[in-house]
């Protein structure tokens, strides 16, 4: 249930960016969410819908890209995807480094400008 806090942080960024770009409305937002974040896309969508009311991103489409977990072994250099939430190499058993899966980031937004040019 941390989706509401995440939606509120996202909206704060959208308000700032909309202002910086002279946008009147934000109509679409693309975010990337790593599988490790524990964010449930449906819950985030719902929280976004509720929290965006009355703001610049009200009614915007929220596009959520789920980023799989990828690791690279520090010893054998092997790279593995979606093998479970493990930081251990499935081949040689040594410690692996996380390449992706913890993302919680905004990628882009679609805006309607406020008529002052862009």
């Amino acid at each position: 249930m941390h989706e509401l806090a995440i939606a509120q942080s996202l909206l704060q960024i959208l308000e700032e960016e909309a202002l910086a770009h002279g946008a009147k409305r934000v109509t679409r937002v693309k975010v990337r969410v790593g599988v490790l974040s524990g964010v449930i896309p449906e819950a985030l969508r719902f929280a976004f819908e509720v929290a965006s009311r009355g703001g610049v991103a009200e009614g915007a489409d929220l596009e959520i890209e789920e980023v799989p977990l990828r690791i690279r072994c520090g010893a054998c250099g092997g790279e593995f995807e979606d093998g479970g939430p493990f930081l251990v190499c499935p081949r040689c058993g040594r410690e692996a480094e996380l390449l992706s899966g913890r993302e919680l980031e905004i990628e882009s937004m679609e805006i309607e400008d406020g008529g002052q040019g862009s």
Partner: protein
Amino acid sequence: MEVKVVRDILEVNEVIAQENQRVFSERGIYVLNLMGSPGTGKTTLLERTLERLRERWKVGVIEGDIATSQDAERIARHGVPTVQINTGGACHLDGNMIRGALGELDLEGLDLLVVENVGNLVCPAEFRIGEDDKVMILSVTEGEDKPLKYPLMFQVSSALLLNKMDLLPYVDFDLERFRQYALKVNPRLEIMEISCKTGEGLDRWVQWLEGRISKKRG
């Protein structure tokens, strides 16, 4: 018009967490973020820890709960300065809530600040508050599969206290399998078996903690 905006959604929290960390580090205060499920024994662990530490170190506590100040009252009885944060529904503490609580806590002379997070195995893992370490506590009654179900919590923790070891004979908790799962999820996790009831393992835990405090005090 599409605009590229590559920003971390939780960057605002991250900035505040770093500011908090600076405030703590300037004073040499070691900050522990204690996390775990409701009922796992966070407050009891804290009480047992305070009994062992308070002669040697000056400790402050921030208690995070959705509602009530029962935990803060329990801790304050041990004679340590305690601030209660009621999140009013939120399932975790964040940097801003800690910043707000600092106004009520005298940091002068503190060696250790323990922040007891809201009971939850998911949300607190995602929000930094300015801590040096996250430590989680899990009890054997919760089952050995938890590292697989809540991996992030195990990955962001430096140490894991496996509590209620005195109940092990009465529950179906596969200790060996648990260790395998936990160390696969986080190979660097320091696992300590404890019982707040019998005192088992608490000396080792306190030793670990004092090592961290001493290092921060310099």
